[in-house]
């Protein structure tokens, strides 16, 4: 072939190679022009691939015609492509290229595509001359480079697609986040914001927010010093967490937001911008304010209660003491008169007896009233934490002995037996000696009060690191529906005043507070004898 015709054809081939970065499209144009201009019947591009052991093989990645394996010339040529070559064998094989062969009137040419693989050409005889073949080297070099570029581009496109997928995911998080997410300059203009951020400030879209807010300090912050404080914290600590400020919405209304942000710096450490999150805490803030006001009101009421109790203490108990004292003296004098055998007319004696009985009622009710006032004061002090405790190592044997001695008299005129099952070696507990006696006495006096006949059993036992004191009676018991309320204030067993034994209804709540202060617990359960079993447990030393 004349040289100028060859140059012309090769130029056309060269111009057709590498016009696309899509591998298939590039070869569809490039290889078809290559074959058409050289009047070849078939061609294939084979890519060199390495297996896990580093051995090289060649895989057909593109062919024209697509269905050409039936052709014996193609099969013969492909059979000459070796597989599983180590580095040395590959070098020898490539050095031996181009391979030229022929069969059935066809010639085949196996040429190197440097850095990519091989090019196979099939042409009818007489085929390509040696100069024609040699002249193809720069074309093959260009084709190889184009193939490599396409593969690199495919890889790049795949990475871009992967990255876009990830970006899409993060964008979805950004767009759908409940919290406002923002990026702003230090000067106070917004760079980016998500829909929640726009909504927070009363704007319809992030674009509208970014366009509408050019200076966060003056347009958003209610107090400019808050903005300055925020920036100062960012500059000093690099971040700010839960920074709460009052802010203006687009419509001028004021709300509260909590912002957490960090300062982004460049490689030299110069501040670039701020990015972070903001949350509308207006409802929460309003609730806190309401709570604070409620607390102040509660404290005021508590003070009133304390004052009232103080008044009760001084203004009720003092005259009551006088009333009770004089009633007792009057009763004593009447007793002396009536018992001394003084000669009084009968009607006078009868009247004095009645007065004596009435004075007895005054004394009894007066004492009950005194107890009630004392209990109310005790409970009040316990609940308010103003009770004066005398905590020390306490012998529970001593506490129980004192309690038994103090309540023994209550059993004297009854059909109720007091039984004690108390070991003599009970451990010490940390507590207030007198208050613990108060608890046990209360339980014992309650037991005898609600037991017509039978027994009241006081027992104590150590369980683990607790001492459990039990008072079990054979009395009327506690109905199941009252078990839960029996330790509440002013609740007393029984439905009617007439049935109810005398009492203030504050004994058990006081016991509960005392036991609670000792780190223990108090409870009631049915006793096996049908009565009730009150028990408390406190930690041992």
């Amino acid at each position, binding site marked *: 072939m004349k040289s100028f015709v060859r140059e012309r054809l090769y130029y*056309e081939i060269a111009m*057709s190679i590498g016009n696309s970065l899509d591998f298939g499209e590039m070869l569809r144009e490039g290889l078809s022009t290559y*074959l058409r201009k050289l*009047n070849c019947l*078939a061609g294939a591009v084979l890519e060199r691939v390495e297996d896990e052991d580093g051995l090289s093989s060649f895989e057909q990645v593109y062919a024209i015609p697509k*269905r050409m394996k*039936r052709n014996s010339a193609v099969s013969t040529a492909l059979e000459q492509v070796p597989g599983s070559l180590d580095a040395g064998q590959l070098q020898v094989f490539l050095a031996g290229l181009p391979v030229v062969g022929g069969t059935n009137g066809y010639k085949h040419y196996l040429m190197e595509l440097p850095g990519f693989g091989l090019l196979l050409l099939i042409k009818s005889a007489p085929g390509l001359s040696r100069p024609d073949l040699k002249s193809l080297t720069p074309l093959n070099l260009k084709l190889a480079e184009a193939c490599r570029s396409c593969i690199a581009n495919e890889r790049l496109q795949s990475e871009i697609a992967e990255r876009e997928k990830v970006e899409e995911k993060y964008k979805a998080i950004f767009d759908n986040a409940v919290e406002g997410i923002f990026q702003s300059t230090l000067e106070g203009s917004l760079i980016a914001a998500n829909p929640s951020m726009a909504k927070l400030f009363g704007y319809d879209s992030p674009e509208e927010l970014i366009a509408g807010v050019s200076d966060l300090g003056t347009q958003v912050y209610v107090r400019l010093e808050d903005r300055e404080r925020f920036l100062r914290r960012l500059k000093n600590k690099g971040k700010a967490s839960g920074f709460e400020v009052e802010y203006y919405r687009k419509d001028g209304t004021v709300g509260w937001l909590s912002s957490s942000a960090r300062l982004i710096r460049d490689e030299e450490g110069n501040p670039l911008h701020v990015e972070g999150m903001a949350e509308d805490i207006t409802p929460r803030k309003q609730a806190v304010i309401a709570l604070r006001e409620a607390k102040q009101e509660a404290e005021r009421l508590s003070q009133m209660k304390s004052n009232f109790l103080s008044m009760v203490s001084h203004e009720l108990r003092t005259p009551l003491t006088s009333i009770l004292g004089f009633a007792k003296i009057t009763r004593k004098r009447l007793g002396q008169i009536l018992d001394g055998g003084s000669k009084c007319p009968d009607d006078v004696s009868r009247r004095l007896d009645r007065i004596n009985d009435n004075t007895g009622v005054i004394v009894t009710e007066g004492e009950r009233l005194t107890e009630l006032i004392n209990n109310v004061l005790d409970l009040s002090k316990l609940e308010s934490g103003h009770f004066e405790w005398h905590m020390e190592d306490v012998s529970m044997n001593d506490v129980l002995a004192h309690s038994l001695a103090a309540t023994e008299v209550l059993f004297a005129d009854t059909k109720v037996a007091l039984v004690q099952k108390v070991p003599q070696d009970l451990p010490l507990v940390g507590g207030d000696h007198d208050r613990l006696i108060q608890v046990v006495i209360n339980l014992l006096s309650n037991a005898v009060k609600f037991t017509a006949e039978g027994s009241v059993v006081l027992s104590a036992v150590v369980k683990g690191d607790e001492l459990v004191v039990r008072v079990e009676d054979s009395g009327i018991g506690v109905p199941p529906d009252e078990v839960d309320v029996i330790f509440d204030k002013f609740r007393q067993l029984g439905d009617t005043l007439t049935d109810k034994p005398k009492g203030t209804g504050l004994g058990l709540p006081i016991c509960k507070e005392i036991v609670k202060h000792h780190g223990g617990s108090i409870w009631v359960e049915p006793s096996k004898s049908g009565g009730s079993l009150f028990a408390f447990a406190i930690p041992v030393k």
Partner: protein
Amino acid sequence: MKVFIDKGGTPSTLRETLDAALETGQARSLLVLSCDGNDFTPERLDPILKEVPVPIFGGTFPVVLSGGRQMSRGSVVVAMNHEAEVHYIPGMSDLEADYEAILDEKVGGDDEFKTVMVFVDGFSQRIAAFIDALYAIFGLEVNYVGGGAGSLSLKQKPCLITNDGLMQDGAILAALDMESGVGVSHGWATVSGPYKVTESERNVIKSLDWRPAFDVYRSVVEAHSGTHFVSRPFFDIAKAYPFGIAKMGSELVVRDPVAIDGDQNLVCVGEVPEGAFVDILHGKPDDLIRAAGRALERAKTNLSSHAEPGLGLFVDCVSRALFLGDEFFAELDAVSLPGLEFVGACTIGEIANSGKDYLEFYNKTSVVAFLEGE
């Protein structure tokens, strides 16, 4: 194979001819070459074509050839004793169509065909892309023969004959398990060139060597012919001066400039890729007639020695007929062989491959195919 001639050129006479071909009982498929002068329309022809019980393929052409005669009206029907696998591919001007994928889906991978007859709408815009796809799918061991159907009016209209009717802007291909021998030749020779196609859009050449294409073409042709384009219609002169695109070890591939558009660009039959080099060709009638004879010889040589020719098919470019004028009869004489019946058509571009060359869409070229008989 048996040839039936319809001289009437009406739908009813064609129906009679088709019926006659079918009545032989040996027609397993029908090749129909009809004259554009019949003025067939889908409305009139589709009902007839849809009733044909065997695969039917072909087209309407400016001239139909039968036994050395030129027909401008009527049809040639060939009853083929091989059953053809026929596929119609629409959208031959669809810029987005992936013909390789379409053919890959339509054509079975295991079928072994020996000859593919192809007819395309000659005024479609993506014939070259379709030809490439055809080659990619059917491969190199198949002989291809066919050409562009259409009208000398240069207007696109329904021109492809299929079992579904008369179609436009498509391609019909018939794959046959039938031996053939194909010869291609044209006889045109370079008078000037090469010129680099610096701007083109498919079949429209805009500039050559960065100068307006028509300016370059006119200066060469007017100087060589001694005539001026202003004095005569463009194609009257241009039919004698086609372009040639070089390919190694083969005749130039001819591209026929048939018109100039409003921007003074040269409109060709078939694509001229940007970056290609083209020569301006001219031919003497004797050279062209001799070339047609060469095509015949090559076809004979390329037919397998164990196959007996049953029919000669001559696909010749219509612009050769226009160029040769009265001498076209001599070309028809050159493509004749005692004892072998020849039919054919003057086409708008030719498709051929003898199994030794890359498949091309030619212009102004003679293609002869010997089709294996029984």
